[in-house]
């Protein structure tokens, strides 16, 4: 799968592309671990616009990431879920647990707002 990231106003945006499945999940987990190292509150947006498949292992990776970010007073936000990809979040009711935004701009706005509340 394709993994790229950029820093926008102190918020890391992780862009994934292709299949986010049990085969691809370790690479994403590795990235998440790298970004969580120093204990500073951080926010991460995972942009799933180009992800065409998500399985339960990918879901587990995102849940672990979300828990770690919350432990560090940060947030992991998701955006741009394709309709078919949304199904797995709805079936597991994790759509009500994750902060999911329609666009990256909306997610960025929320992430920056939460950072300024903490500073």
């Amino acid at each position, binding site marked *: 799968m394709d993994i790229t990231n950029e820093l926008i106003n102190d918020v890391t945006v992780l862009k994934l592309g292709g*299949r986010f*499945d*049990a*085969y691809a999940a370790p690479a994403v987990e590795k990235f998440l671990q790298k970004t969580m190292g120093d204990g500073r509150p951080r926010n991460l947006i995972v942009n799933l616009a180009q992800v065409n*498949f998500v*399985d*339960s*292992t990918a*879901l*587990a990776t995102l*849940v*672990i990431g979300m*828990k770690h970010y919350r432990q560090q007073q940060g947030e992991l936000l998701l955006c741009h879920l394709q*309709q*078919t990809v949304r*199904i*797995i979040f709805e*079936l*597991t*009711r*994790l759509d009500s*647990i994750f902060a999911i935004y329609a666009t990256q701009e909306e997610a960025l706005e929320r992430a920056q707002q939460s950072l300024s509340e903490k500073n």
Partner: protein
Amino acid sequence: MSSQSELNNTIWLDFPASLKYLNVLGSCITALLTHVKRLPDPETTAYNIQLAVHEIYTNCALHAYGNKPEAGRISISLLIDPDERFLKINLIDTGIPFNERLAVDPDLNEIHIHGYGLFIARQLLDTVSYQRLDNKNSWLLIKYFLSA
């Protein structure tokens, strides 16, 4: 349906127990479903079946074989019945027996990290059944197609 008719319509796939080829399995299922002329909401139906089969396959590779491709193979048969009423898929591995204690549905009021795979497959298919036969794990999956 006669067994000869079943045989004439059955596709056999045989994978090393590796997650690397999950995308190949997914593509095969999607391509096979293009043969169903009146598949309702083809994109979503194909995606959901692919996801469900994928979860069972991953379970075989990770749990039956401990994520070791050299540990064995996963044999898969796919059959669309000639009247296009259902898709039947059988996955067989020779790994360690499935722990049926893992078959409990997760409490959706709690956040879990593991335990969603089988639950997802059950939600998306009409039949998900497991048997231990001749020292093999055998999963039978069936999805009925409602008329479009």
